[in-house]
């Protein structure tokens, strides 16, 4: 009896393992991400069944054992993020060699040059209005690029497997701010990641911004790039991150009628509305308020008229007092 058990034990356990691995392999639930083509999801599942996990399992044909290995984090792709990202409709093999479909992956594939953003986005008239060439040039002049030229690529901030454009598509400014700032903070508030590129000690953003009044409100109301980039009219979102010493530090640059926020954060809402009505009536009625920038045009007119009436009244009264009492 015990010998039969021991005979079937191995294949039994093996099949349970295989079944459970298949089930757990993150088959997407039916109907999830409906705007992505089913065939894309099915094809990608071949890769994602391992690459969406921190541990992957395969049957070693040499040892005939099922083995479980760690997937390094750089090779992991989260389907939940990928299928809502900008690149969601791509097959993995659109950018990576088809040879990856074989497992184990051939060692030579490591030599395969990776596609870069500019391979698709550069020099294509579909993307002309975003002016990726200028973005690339600006980025080339930024501190990120100057200090870590080779290691720092677009991907550091715009992971092609998860990046989702926000500023042009979302109505909710707070969401844009939180999303964009989380990109900076993913290194600048995370020493492990920061030190992948540099031996510098990551300055604590909270203490280095000590001078900023109401820091919490600022951090949730504007993006880091508002003050830390050089804004030009050539690209939609400035990419030239300036050295620390050149960051905007004068309050009035934002807190004034001609606020730079109008050319950055509120650009997409306010393009045509930067008229005499200014900030107030243009962009952000409702969810934000910038002292010095939100001036109510009508209120201003009323207050000027009122003051003129008051002073005029006083002037007449003074005149009468002088004439009559003399």
């Amino acid at each position, binding site marked *: 009896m015990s010998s039969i058990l021991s005979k079937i034990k191995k294949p039994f356990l093996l099949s349970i393992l295989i079944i459970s691995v298949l089930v757990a392999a993150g088959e997407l639930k039916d109907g999830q991400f409906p705007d992505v083509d089913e065939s894309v999801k099915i094809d990608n599942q071949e890769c994602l069944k391992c690459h969406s996990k921190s541990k992957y399992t395969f049957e070693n044909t040499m040892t005939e054992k099922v083995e479980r290995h760690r997937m390094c984090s750089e090779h992991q792709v989260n389907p939940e993020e990928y299928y809502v990202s900008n690149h969601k409709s791509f097959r993995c093999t659109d950018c990576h060699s088809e040879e990856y479909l074989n497992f184990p992956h051939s060692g030579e594939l490591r030599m395969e040059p990776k596609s870069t953003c500019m391979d698709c986005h550069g020099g294509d008239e579909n993307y002309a209005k975003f002016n990726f060439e200028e973005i690339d040039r600006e980025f080339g002049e930024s501190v990120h690029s100057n200090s870590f030229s080779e290691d720092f690529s677009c991907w550091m901030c715009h992971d092609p497997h998860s990046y989702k454009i926000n500023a042009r598509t979302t109505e909710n400014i*707070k969401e844009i701010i939180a999303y964009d700032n989380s990109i900076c903070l993913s290194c600048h508030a995370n020493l492990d990641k920061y030190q992948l590129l540099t031996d510098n000690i990551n300055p604590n953003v909270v203490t280095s911004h000590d*001078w900023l*009044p*109401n820091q*919490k*409100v600022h951090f949730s109301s504007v993006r880091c790039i508002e003050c830390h980039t050089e804004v030009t009219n050539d690209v939609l979102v400035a990419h030239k991150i300036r050295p620390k010493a050149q960051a905007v530090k*004068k*309050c*009035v*640059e934002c*807190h*004034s*009628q*001609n606020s730079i926020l109008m050319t950055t954060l509120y650009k997409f809402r306010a393009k045509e509305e930067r008229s005499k009505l200014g900030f107030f009536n243009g962009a952000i*009625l*409702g*969810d*934000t*308020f910038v*002292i*010095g920038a*939100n*001036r*109510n045009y009508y*209120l201003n007119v009323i*207050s000027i008229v*009122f*003051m003129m009436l*008051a*002073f005029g009244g*006083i002037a007449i*009264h003074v005149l*009468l*007092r002088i004439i*009559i009492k003399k």
Partner: protein
Amino acid sequence: MSGRIYLYPLIIRLWHGCNALLILTLIFTGASLQYSNLEYPLMRFDLAVSIHNVAGILLTLTYIWFIISNIYTKNVVHYYLHIKGLFNRITTQLIYYTWGMFTGKTSPFPITAENKFNPLQRFTYVLAMYVFLPVLILSGWGLLFPGIVIHNIFGLGGIFWADLLHVVMAFLVSAFLIIHVYFCTIGATFYINFKSMIDGWHVSK
């Protein structure tokens, strides 16, 4: 008929001096925040923010001082507004200021120890001290801690309304100040009322 009446107790005079200084500071710094301009700054923005905050907190204290000292000295009775006939009394006073005082009429509401404000004064002082200032102070505290008060109670848009209220009230107080100071020059002599606010004695013709 000229006379001297002791109308302004020391504690009220001291309050009034602090109050006036703080309000002037707040108006100046507040205006430089509201009309901030990169090329023509009235004053450095961050400095204006700090001074405005400190002066605002001090003004809260002097406001409490005003309330307590008014009750303590019973000066508060001069701030009771009797609605009945209020409009008529104010118009009578206004007619005196625009017509009567130039045609040799005597003041319709002569100043006495029991009745130290004329109806127009009484009305504007109540408005300034019991409407404008409390709203101004409360909205100011809200703006000082926007994350705590305004967001929690009124949502994100709240900060916009709080600021609007604050700015409107600040404007009304500024207007009050100008008119108030001007009316103070209409006394027995041009400057005698200012002297009253220093030594406490009111002088009438």
